[in-house]
């Protein structure tokens, strides 16, 4: 079997990825790439990373058999990779620990991050506090309103949260503003990107740091069931939790990889955040080439999802590539379906999932029903839903 070996030396996944940035950022990216190349296989660095994942994050995260949900659905057995049990409540922290350790080795005293739902911002603020780094988080002003508890959490951790007022005032604009900060403060600042997008080496580096999810899962599934799942399901906004669990499975035959995008009000309404499922045109944004929601003039259009963490017009370039080579499948789930899955999981399993992860659960439940009882679906339960209770309450007409 052919071994999967992506990206190429300049960060291309076939026609996707690359380094599409202004000249002013090239040197910083060259420096980062060189440092990452130096440390990605360095035993001491990897040992420190592993130590923090174990003792600070609480890894390995368990695999959990969702028996009642599986029985209710009446088909394949559904298992969860419990990233919601990590410190800070989501998979995001795996990557921030890795990048922050790199920042420390590079002698950068200041880290910056963009955030949508606030999970990546919280994870960055957390590791910055632990390592004594100054931390500035850019967040669209719309998201600041939607995610007030996470904003306060970041402040408690000593970070400065900067509301971004430009453009659509959401995640993509926060990313623009973080890039502008970075280009202005290159010498002392490390930019911790939270997803598998951005210019090379970010898509590769974030994937590598998140791959711990899939690496653990392969061992755990073997121990628990003596076999690997028939399908691995994960939600996809930028796509970091999905890449993290997919990557170690790419070369494993017989394991379907399914990414679940946000269909918002429905793909046909145009109000969604599902560039892969909708077959959006390919374009260039935030340093890489990928499928991109845009109008006929090439302007990036506003996306819609109930989940701030999936509300992004592009998608990581490696997902674009996995779609094209048909190694992964991409589907989308509406706001309503995700909400129903959210409520259902709360009551069947005693787990409050993040709205992002609820998309994966919704699709896995549909898929399981079409499969037999001896088949297995592994869902990446990427985060817990405490951060979303205000949103859910509001949609249910309840004031907390």
């Amino acid at each position, binding site marked *: 079997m052919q071994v999967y070996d992506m990206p190429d030396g*300049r960060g291309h996944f076939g026609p996707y990825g*690359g*380094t*599409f*940035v*202004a*000249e*002013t950022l*090239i*040197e*910083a990216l*060259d420096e980062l790439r060189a440092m990452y190349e130096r440390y990605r296989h360095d035993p001491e660095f990897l040992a420190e990373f592993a130590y923090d994942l174990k003792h600070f994050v609480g890894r390995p995260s368990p695999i959990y058999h969702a028996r009642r949900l599986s029985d209710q659905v009446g088909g394949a057995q559904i298992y969860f990779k419990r990233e919601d049990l990590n410190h800070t409540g989501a998979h995001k922290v795996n990557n921030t620990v890795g990048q922050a350790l790199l920042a420390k080795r590079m002698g950068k005293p200041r880290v910056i991050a963009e955030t949508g739902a606030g999970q990546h911002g919280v994870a960055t603020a957390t590791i910055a506090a632990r390592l004594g780094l100054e931390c500035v988080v850019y967040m669209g002003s719309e998201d600041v309103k939607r995610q007030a508890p996470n904003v306060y959490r970041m402040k408690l951790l000593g970070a400065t949260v900067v509301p971004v007022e*430009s*453009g659509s005032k959401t995640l*993509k*604009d926060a990313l*623009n503003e973080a*890039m*502008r900060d970075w*280009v*202005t403060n*290159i*010498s002392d600042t490390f930019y911790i990107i939270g997803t598998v997008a951005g210019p090379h080496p970010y898509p590769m580096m974030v994937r590598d740091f998140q791959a711990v999810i899939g690496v653990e899962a392969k061992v755990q599934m073997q121990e628990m069931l003596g076999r690997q799942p028939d399908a691995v399901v994960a939600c996809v906004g930028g796509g970091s939790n999905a890449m993290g669990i997919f990557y170690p499975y790419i070369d494993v035959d017989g394991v379907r990889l399914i990414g679940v995008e946000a269909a918002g009000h429905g793909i046909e309404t145009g109000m969604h955040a599902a560039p892969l499922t909708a077959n959006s*045109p*390919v*374009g*260039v*944004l*935030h*340093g890489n080439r990928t499928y*991109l929601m*845009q109008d*006929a*003039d*090439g*302007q*990036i*259009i506003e996306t819609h999802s109930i989940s701030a963490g999936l509300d992004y017009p592009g998608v990581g370039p490696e997902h674009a590539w996995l779609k094209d080579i048909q190694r992964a499948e991409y589907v989308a789930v509406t706001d309503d379906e995700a909400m129903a899955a959210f409520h259902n999981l709360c009551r069947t399993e005693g787990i409050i999932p993040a709205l992002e992860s609820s998309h994966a659960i919704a699709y896995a439940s549909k898929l399981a029903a079409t499969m037999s009882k001896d088949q297995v679906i592994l869902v990446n339960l990427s985060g817990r839903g405490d951060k979303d209770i205000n949103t859910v309450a509001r949609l249910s007409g309840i004031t907390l």
Partner: protein
Amino acid sequence: MSRIKSVFAELKAQGKKALIPYITAGDPHPRFTVDLMHTMVKHGADMIELGVPFSDPMADGPVIQRASERALAHRVGLRHVLEMVAEFRKEDGHTPVILMGYANPVEAMGVERFAEQARLSGVDGVLTVDYPPEECAEFVGLLQSKQIDPIFLLSPTSEPARVDLIVNQASGFVYYVSLKGVTGAKNLDMSEVAERVATIRTKTDLPIGVGFGVRDAATATAVAAVADAVVVGSRTVQMIEQSDEAALSQNLAGLIAELRQAIDAVH
């Protein structure tokens, strides 16, 4: 000979430096753009840098971001910008026009179609901010096949080997970004600019433009002393932003004349 090349040659013969003001096409409203271009030429601009509005202008500071947003409110896209250049060309066959923008609108139109339409409209140079030379070999070839100069940025952080790579792909002129940051940011360190420009000169015969931090007559004079062209962007856009529609043309004319005088004061 390209318009850019011949204008630089004329200026050199006269012992003058080029003034290249930037405005965003469609700001504050598309009906003003072509007139403003003519006004700038009349009052001393040697070339025009015309910004193509984009929803996510990552390399721009707040002033030019807002200009993009004003233009996008009127749905001004790359197709309209090319129409504006064609309109400008009806009365001005001499002044070079350089488009400055981002890759996505170009890719949405299709690189080949864009290169052809740009040639037909009378565009002379194209600066695509987020196309570093490694990622746009095909695009550069397409532009050059249409006699359009690909303009590239050089930054204070560009290593010597990169300077070589870039000047070898560029034609028309190279554009030295005079500070670490976005357009319209803080003050310039003129001694660093002078040193870097001198280094670039050892590697290329192309004219060198300097921009990204030229905010007034004094900095324009200082930049003109070391560079072949002075690019003024955020200052002109700010003037547009702060002017009533009735005073727009007059105010911009005044600013351009002042910058012209400042640049010519070098000699």
